[in-house]
């Protein structure tokens, strides 16, 4: 059954065709949202049904294994959660909402295809499909209310994005020149023979650059704060969480290229990881805009994820996967609160959360749990994830890196907990109560439960992740 192999992508592809037809007619945002939500929930089911599929498609350029299918399921879940809680889509004009949902779906489709591609050209096409849709989502924020910074952030996003693509393509051209093939399977043995040569190292580093951009690792991070601030809250929720899962998956696939004797690549990853952590955490300390703060914290978290990659072992890769899945959940919980508290889709300052525990107790609890988890406080998933990453890096003999990461965790506690302090101990003054719909309440309860459950029962999840990683090594 070749059809089953491609079922998740095919499902979203047909869905985006339906959305395209809708967007040509006079359909309001409500219908488009209902269709997209059905699609998202359907794609979760399809991804789940295809979890154990294995095989190759399209002249072996497209590989379906447990690794890709597991990531696809996580991505589909993230997509569904974003849609579930962005009920009103406050920041986007009703007229263009069908297009908005179309691009959101296409972006998810691109990410699903990305994690299965094992050939350079396929990888490029899938990556660009998801990136271009994201570039277009940013300027769709309504500019009639006088907010114009989304245009600036969109142009910065696309220009940085093109540079990242260019760097990646340049690296790909060297890989192609060195090995004469674009298939990762054939690249691997041929690269191992020339691992000492600088050309091979530069080529791998440049290709990794394209994914560093997606994950917002240090030298490719500069778009993050501006795009987070400029895009509407719901768009930021998507950009901040879902693509990063796919980026980590691809980084794992590509770092496996340099395994096991890529000492130079390891050194580079260590430097980037330390820079990301320090830069992200130190700058986040002084932020007043909530989304900007989460943006810088995202850069720091990207640094933590790299801790798993530097080990170059399957335990480390599995820990990275576990951590990024946990980050997806924590981040979505934080953005759910931001989307709900923001009244007309405007940006939130940290002070706007004052007294949230009186205005919306459930949201305050969700935010607190999410912040505690990101800060790495037990029993939440953030703690378990960091613990796994740090022990993995320690066992691989990177003691200085572990110490620096631990210092960073301590720094980050300050700004995460100051958000919790504002929500719980500042007085609300005359800020109105926040109305939360039934579905959003259920989603926020579910997210809190998942954050706790992932933190309490890491064994099964890590086993799953290890099994997935074993499928590609």
């Amino acid at each position, binding site marked *: 059954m070749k059809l089953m192999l491609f079922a998740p992508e095919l499902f979203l592809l047909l869905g985006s065709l339906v959305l395209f037809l809708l967007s040509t007619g006079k359909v309001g945002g409500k219908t488009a949202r209902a269709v997209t939500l059905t699609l998202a929930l359907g794609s979760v089911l399809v991804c789940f049904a295809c979890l154990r599929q294995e095989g190759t498609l399209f002249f072996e350029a497209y590989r379906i294994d447990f690794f890709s299918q597991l990531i696809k399921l996580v991505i589909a879940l993230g997509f569904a959660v974003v849609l579930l809680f962005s009920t009103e889509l406050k920041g986007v004009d009703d007229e263009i909402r069908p297009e908005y949902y179309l691009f959101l779906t296409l972006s998810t489709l691109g990410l699903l295809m990305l994690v299965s591609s094992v050939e350079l*050209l396929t990888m490029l096409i899938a990556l*660009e499909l998801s990136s271009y849709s994201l570039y277009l989502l940013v300027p769709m924020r309504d500019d009639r209310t006088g907010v114009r910074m989304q*245009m*600036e952030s*969109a142009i910065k996003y696309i*220009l940085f994005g093109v540079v990242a693509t260019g760097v990646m393509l340049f690296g*790909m051209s060297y890989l*192609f*020149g060195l090995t004469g093939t674009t298939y990762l399977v054939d690249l691997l043995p041929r690269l191992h023979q020339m691992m000492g040569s600088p050309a091979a190292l530069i080529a791998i580093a440049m290709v990794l650059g394209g994914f560093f951009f997606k994950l917002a690792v240090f030298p490719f991070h500069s*778009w993050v704060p501006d795009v987070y601030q400029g895009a509407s809250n719901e768009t930021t929720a998507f950009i901040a969480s879902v693509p990063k899962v796919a980026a980590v998956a691809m980084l794992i696939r590509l770092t496996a290229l340099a395994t096991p004797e890529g000492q130079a690549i390891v050194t580079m990853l260590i430097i980037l990881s330390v820079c990301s952590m320090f830069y992200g955490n130190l700058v986040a300390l002084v932020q007043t805009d909530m989304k900007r703060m989460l943006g810088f914290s995202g850069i720091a978290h990207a640094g933590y994820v790299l801790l798993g990659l530097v080990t170059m072992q399957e335990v480390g890769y599995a820990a990275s996967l576990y951590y990024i899945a946990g980050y997806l959940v924590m981040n979505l919980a934080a953005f759910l609160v931001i989307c709900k508290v923001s009244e007309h889709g405007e940006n939130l300052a940290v002070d706007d959360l004052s007294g949230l525990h009186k205005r919306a107790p459930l949201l305050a609890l969700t935010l607190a749990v999410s912040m505690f988890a990101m800060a790495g406080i037990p029993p939440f998933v953030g703690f378990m994830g960091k613990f796994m990453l740090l022990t993995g890096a320690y066992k691989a003999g990177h003691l200085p890196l572990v110490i620096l990461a631990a210092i960073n965790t301590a720094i980050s506690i300050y700004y995460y907990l100051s958000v919790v302090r504002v929500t719980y101990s500042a007085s609300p003054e005359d800020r109105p109560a926040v109305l939360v719909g039934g579905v959003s309440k259920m989603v926020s309860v579910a997210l809190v439960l998942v954050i706790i459950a992932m933190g309490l029962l890491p064994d099964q999840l890590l086993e799953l992740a290890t099994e997935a990683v074993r499928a590609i090594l």
Partner: protein
Amino acid sequence: MEILVLSNSLHTYLVIGALLFGIGFYGLVQRQTFIGMLISAELILSGASLNFMAFNRFLAPDPTVGQVFTLFIMAIAAAECAIALSIIIAVYRNYKSIDTEDVVDLQG
């Protein structure tokens, strides 16, 4: 006579490709308008395309792969250009300028 042999050597093309990449990068940093930055970004992509064609001509066992790759890069560059231009129009509508010095609401 040496100048005639240059066109038949891989190194010539690799150097030109690297130069295009460098010029594009320099332009992105130096240019004052978004259109100029977009043109510089295109130079980076053409540097990569040239590399692919050169490797394809001199080294590759299968001489179609590089050409196909280059064709795809051209298509992707065109799509990216369309999107970037549409965003630049949106920027102009809001800021009445496409100068990098005027479009500075965000501090990143």
